[in-house]
């Protein structure tokens, strides 16, 4: 199996994630898309670890998972607070700062 295929998948996942961040309006979905991007990076790391023949990339993948978990804690706290005060998690409603 050609390792480059995994890189194509990683790039595809990353693209889907970043399009989702730009297009979707619900903060939770935007956040899920960001997690998808992080996992795309993880896949790329692991693939490169395989191609390069060392373990550094796999170690990095573990660190990314821990950091992503911390990000979920902080992110959901913020999104839940916003949802409780305005009964909506849409990023379009949060526009008091526009003018």
């Amino acid at each position, binding site marked *: 199996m050609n390792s480059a295929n995994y890189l194509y998948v990683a790039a595809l996942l990353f693209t889907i994630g970043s399009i989702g961040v730009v297009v979707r309006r619900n903060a939770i979905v935007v956040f899920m898309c960001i997690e998808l991007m992080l996992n795309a990076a993880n896949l790329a790391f692991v693939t490169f670890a395989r191609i390069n023949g060392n373990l550094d990339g796999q170690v990095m993948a573990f660190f990314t998972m821990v950091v992503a978990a911390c990000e979920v804690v902080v*992110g959901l706290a913020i*999104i839940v607070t*916003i949802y409780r005060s305005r009964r909506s998690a849409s*990023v379009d409603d949060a526009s008091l700062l526009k003018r």
Partner: protein
Amino acid sequence: MTTFIAPALSYSLLAPILIVLGGAVLGVIAEAFLSRAIRPTVQLSIALGTLVLALAQVWRIRHASSLTAAMSSVTVDGPAILLQGSVLIIAILGVFLIADQDHFTTLAAALPGSPEERDAQRAGEKLTEVYPLTLFAVAGMLLFPIATDLITLFVALEVLSLPLYLMAGLSRRRRLLSQEAALKYFLLGAFSSAFFLFGSAFLYGYSGSLSLAGIHTAVEASSGNQVFLLIGLAFLSVGLLFKVSAVPFHAWTPDVYQGAPTPVTAFMAAATKIAAFGAMLRIFYTAFANAYWEWRPLLTIIAVITMLFGAVVAIAQRDIKRMLAYSSIAHAGFLITGVLALNKSGLDATIFYLFAYGIATIGAFAIVTLVRDSSGEVTDMNRWAGLGKRSPFIATVFATLLLAFAGIPLTSGFIGKFSIFSAAYESGNKAVVVVGVLSSAIAAYFYIRVIVLMFFTDPLDDGTSVVIPSILTRATVIISFAVTIFLGVFPTPLLNFISSTAIFIR
């Protein structure tokens, strides 16, 4: 079967970070076990104590240089010491401002306007979680500019960002605005760190190594797939440029600066810039120095549009915090000019500029916290009219800091701009220098407009006044004023210290 070898750490060189992290953990424990009445005092002393201790330790190790402080994942050298010292000084001044608890909500979890919030306010409760959060952010900022492998860089980036996302949402007044700022900062920040991570993956794929030294070797030998290098470089830069708020990755800056509680804005604006530019200097000067044909043209364009955009859009702002935000975008452009120079004087100039700008920024936001009416801070610029007649001292200090931003002689800003532009000129980047001087001139217009508004307009009778500052806030204002003037008149000692210390080791 391989045996496990324990990592060798030189604790004295890592002590500044470890002290700050220790203080943060201590703060979390204090938050859990102490009674509400004594918490504010205890937390403030823990925060200030650890920061001062860490600063003293940075001073003790100021001549140290080591590649192996933590198994080659951090490098302690001259620039590292200077940047860590600057971050700690800014953080101490920032904690002085944060100590004025009037800016923070009493109960971050309560709904705005809910009975719980009113009860907490009536009971005079104070929000003390902000101190440990600040310390965690500071620890990340101390680690970010010294990290020399991609894992440490990414972890430090997140450690400095995550507490700041939360701190942006803690404002007492206009809480919806503040929560919105936190949401925007979080979503865009996480978006940009995903780019940073994806870039790291491709740099790892290019060089087969996670360390900046390994990437440098691969770049020098131009081994590996150049496409991977380009993808990695581009995506990594997006993450860094977001943190320093360069155009086109600046969209969060005005909103977050405006929505966050002003003491947090002050701390974040000054300290994040130092940490992020520190990391940027290290990455571009050590890992990618030999690949400058790849990144210099694009970074030049970004520097030019950042300077012009920041200066031009700031003219249209009516809100003082937004104006300072756009001015910080313009300053990010000037600082990128220093990074672009890619020579020793560029490095020295950027470090000097970062320190001078950070001190002036924290002073300017400290003054914004003081101008209030009955419902809180007044950030509408029109209502600052005639401030010079009401409180001449505060208005004079603010005017001086604005002149420093504009780069008028006898202030630190002039020395900073002069040394950055001369470094860029030396490196043959004349076009950028022309744009830089031009946008400085545009920027001077809106700084001076505020000064005219403060001194030569009659005050409005709408209850806007300058509150009597607390001792700590007063200290911040006076220190930043004094340092700004001192560095403008006698810059030589600091410039010499920087140029004799700031040498990257690989």
